[in-house]
C-alpha cells in the first residue's frame, strides 16, 4: 500500500516536470512562429507603406482651348502639320487661366507643373477627334512627377520636393479647387517602362513575365514529369541512374546566376538566339525549374501506395498501363503542386535573366515570344536602383503586384493539393 502511494507520488512529481517541459517546448514553437510572422509583417508594412502611393496618380483637369492659330495647325488630319504643331502652348495657357495669380511671365514655372508627356496625350486626342479644333475641351492630364511627389509626400523628409514656394502655393490652391487631384493609377497597369516615373507602368513587365512563364511551363512540366516517371518506374537501378539522381539534386542547389551564364553561352552565343526575349528567358528558367519539378514529381510517384500498383499488376496491367492509369493520376496533385512552387520560384527569379539581357530598358509592351521584354522582378530591380525617389514607390508597388502573383500561385497549389488529393 505504502509502496503504491509512493509510486503514484513519484509519477505525480515527474508529471509536473514533464508538463513544464511540454509548456516550454510549446513556448519555443510559438516564439519561432511569432518571429517569422513579425518579420513578414515588417516586410509587408514597409513595402505597403512605401508602395501604396505608387497605385495613385496625380492629374490636372482643365479647359483646354484648342486654338488653331496658337498651335500653328489648321488641319489635324495632316500628318505633317501635326508633327510641326505646338501642343504645349494650349496646355500652358489653360493652366495659367486656372491659376488666378499667374502671369504670362511665370509661364516657365507653370509649365513645370505639367507632365512632359501631356502634349503627346493632347496630340493623340486631337488626332482621334479632329473636329475638336477651334473648340474648348475639358481634359485631364498627368501632372509633372515633381507635383506628384509634392502632393503625395509633402511632409516626408525622405523625399526632396523640387517645386519652389510659388509653385507649391499654386499646387495647394489648385488641389483645393479640385483641379489637381489624385486618383487610381491606371497608367501603372496599362503602360510599359518609362524615363518619367509618372508615366512608368508594369504592363510590359507583367506580359514579359507571363510569356516567359508560359515557355517555362510548357517545357519544364512535361520534361520534368517524363524524367521523373522514367527514373522512378522504368530506369534500372545502377551506378548510372544513381549518378543522374545525385546530379539532379545538385542542380537544384546550383545558384541561379550560373543558369543565366549557361543560357548566355549556349542559347545566345552558340545558338544565336536573340537577347532579352521571353523564349530565352523561359529556356533558362526551365533549366532552373526542372530539378525542382523532377524531385517533387518523384516524391509524388513514390507516395503512391504499392498496393495500388500490385492490384493493377495482379489483374494483368502492363507497366505502361500501371503508370498511366494508376500511378500518374494519383501522383498528379503532388506533381502539380511541385510544379506550381517551381514556377513561383521562376517567376521571382532575377539573376539569370539579367545575364541574358532581359534587364534592358524596354518601353513597349512585348507582343510575342521573340519580342524584347523584361519581367516583374527585373523591373523591380531596375526601379529600385533608380536615383529618382518617385521610382522607389513604383518599385514597391511592383513588388506588391509580384507578391500578389506569388501568393495566388502558392494558394492555388495548396487549393489543388486539397482538392485533388485522393485518399486510399
Amino acid at each position: 500500500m505504502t509502496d503504491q502511494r509512493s509510486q503514484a507520488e513519484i509519477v505525480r512529481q515527474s508529471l509536473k516536470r514533464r508538463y513544464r517541459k511540454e509548456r516550454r517546448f510549446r513556448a519555443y514553437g510559438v516564439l519561432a512562429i511569432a518571429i517569422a510572422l513579425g518579420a513578414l509583417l515588417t516586410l509587408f508594412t514597409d513595402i505597403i507603406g512605401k508602395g501604396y502611393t505608387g497605385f495613385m496618380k496625380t492629374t490636372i483637369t482643365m479647359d483646354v482651348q484648342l486654338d488653331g492659330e496658337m498651335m500653328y495647325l489648321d488641319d489635324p488630319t495632316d500628318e505633317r502639320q501635326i508633327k510641326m504643331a505646338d501642343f504645349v502652348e494650349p496646355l500652358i495657357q489653360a493652366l495659367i487661366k486656372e491659376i488666378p495669380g499667374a502671369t504670362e511671365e511665370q509661364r516657365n514655372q507653370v509649365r513645370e507643373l505639367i507632365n512632359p508627356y501631356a502634349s503627346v496625350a493632347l496630340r493623340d486626342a486631337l488626332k482621334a477627334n479632329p473636329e475638336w479644333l477651334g473648340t474648348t475641351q475639358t481634359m485631364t492630364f498627368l501632372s509633372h512627377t515633381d507635383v506628384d511627389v509634392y502632393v503625395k509626400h509633402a511632409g516626408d523628409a525622405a523625399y526632396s520636393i523640387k517645386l519652389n514656394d510659388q509653385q507649391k502655393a499654386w499646387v495647394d490652391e489648385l488641389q483645393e479647387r479640385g483641379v489637381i487631384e489624385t486618383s487610381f493609377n491606371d497608367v501603372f497597369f496599362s503602360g510599359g517602362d518609362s524615363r518619367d516615373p509618372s508615366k512608368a507602368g508594369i504592363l510590359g513587365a507583367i506580359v514579359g513575365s507571363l510569356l516567359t512563364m508560359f515557355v517555362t511551363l510548357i517545357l519544364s512540366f512535361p520534361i520534368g514529369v517524363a524524367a521523373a516517371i522514367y527514373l522512378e518506374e522504368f530506369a534500372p537501378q545502377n551506378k548510372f541512374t544513381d549518378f543522374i539522381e545525385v546530379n539532379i539534386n545538385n542542380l537544384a542547389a546550383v545558384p541561379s546566376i550560373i543558369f543565366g551564364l549557361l543560357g548566355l553561352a549556349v542559347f545566345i552565343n552558340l545558338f544565336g538566339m536573340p537577347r532579352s526575349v521571353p523564349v530565352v528567358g523561359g529556356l533558362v528558367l526551365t533549366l532552373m525549374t526542372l530539378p525542382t519539378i523532377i524531385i517533387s514529381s518523384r516524391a509524388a510517384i513514390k507516395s503512391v501506395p504499392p498496393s495500388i500498383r500490385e492490384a493493377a499488376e495482379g489483374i494483368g496491367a502492363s507497366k505502361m498501363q500501371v503508370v498511366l492509369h494508376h500511378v500518374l493520376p494519383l501522383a498528379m496533385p503532388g506533381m502539380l503542386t511541385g510544379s506550381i512552387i517551381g514556377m513561383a520560384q521562376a517567376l521571382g527569379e532575377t539573376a539569370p535573366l539579367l545575364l541574358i539581357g532581359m534587364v534592358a530598358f524596354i518601353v513597349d509592351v512585348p507582343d510575342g515570344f521573340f519580342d524584347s521584354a523584361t519581367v516583374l522582378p527585373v523591373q523591380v530591380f531596375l526601379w529600385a536602383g533608380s536615383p529618382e525617389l518617385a521610382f522607389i514607390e513604383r518599385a514597391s508597388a511592383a513588388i506588391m503586384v509580384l507578391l500578389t502573383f506569388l501568393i495566388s500561385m502558392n494558394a492555388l497549389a495548396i487549393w489543388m493539393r486539397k482538392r485533388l488529393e485522393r485518399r486510399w
Partner: protein
Amino acid sequence: MNSVNTTIASEVSQPDEVAVPVQESKPAETVIEEGKTVGKPFSDDPKFKLRDVDVFYGDTRAIKQISLDIGRNEVIAFIGPSGCGKSTFLRCLNRMNDSIDICRVKGSLHLDDHDIYDPKRDVVELRARVGMVFQKPNPFPKSIYDNVAYGPRIHGLANRKSDLDEIVENSLRKAGLWEEVKDRLDANATGMSGGQQQRLCIARAIAVSPEVVLMDEPCSALDPIATAKVEELIAELSESYTIVIVTHSMQQAARVSHRTAYFHLGHLVEVNETNKVFTSPEHELTESYITGRFG
C-alpha cells in the same frame, strides 16, 4: 538433387527467417530433409506443376527445393508460421515477384504445361489467367464499376458497353456484392467497408475470367462476419476456379480447402488432404504447428 540436411537450429540463425520458439518437448534437432515432402504433393491432373523451386532474395534462400502439384479446380491452402515462404511461393505462381529486383526464381514452374518463367512468356497474359487477391483490400480509388471493369477493359474483353455491364454485374454477383452495391456503382470504392472492399477485389480478379485465383491472406484484415462471407465465396468459386489461398487461420484452411500444404522455413514439409493434415499429420513439425505449440 543435392539434398543437404539442415536442422532447425541452424536455420533459426538466418537473419531473414522468423525465429521459431521451439518448445522443450520439440527437440531442436528435428530434421527437414531438403526437397522431401511427406504426404501427397503430386496430383494426376495438375493445373500447376512445380518442381524443385528455389527462390532467392539476394543471398537469402527463401524457398528451398519445393515440388508440388496443384490440381484443377482445387482449393489448396498454404499454412505455416510467419516468414516460412508461403506468400513468396504463392507470388511465384503469377510472377508477382518480378517487380522485386533482388528476387530470383529457380526450378521448373508450369501452368498447363506452359513454362511460367519462360523469358518469352508474356507476364500480362499469365496474370490474366492467374488472378490475385491481396492481404489488404486494395481497390483503386475509382468507382465500384470502374474497379471491376478495369481488367476487362485493358484486356479488351468487352467490345460494347452492354457486354461490360454484364461482366461487371456477373462478377459482382459471384462475389456476393451485387445486392449491396447495385444502386451505387458510381460511388468511390474507397468508401466501402473493409469486407466489401475485399469482396470487390475478388470481383475485380474474377472479372477477367481467370483460371486460377491466388489469395494472399485475404481475410486477415477483416472481421469475422466479413471473413465468413469471403469463405462462403471461396467455396462457391471453387466450382469453376483453381484457388490457392495463403492463410494464418488454421480453422479457415480447414473450412475452405481441399488440400493443405504446410510450409516451414522455406521448406514444404507436408501436403495432404485437409482433414488428414488436421487430424493425423504425418510430420512432427506439422503436428506441433497445428496443435499450436508454435506459429
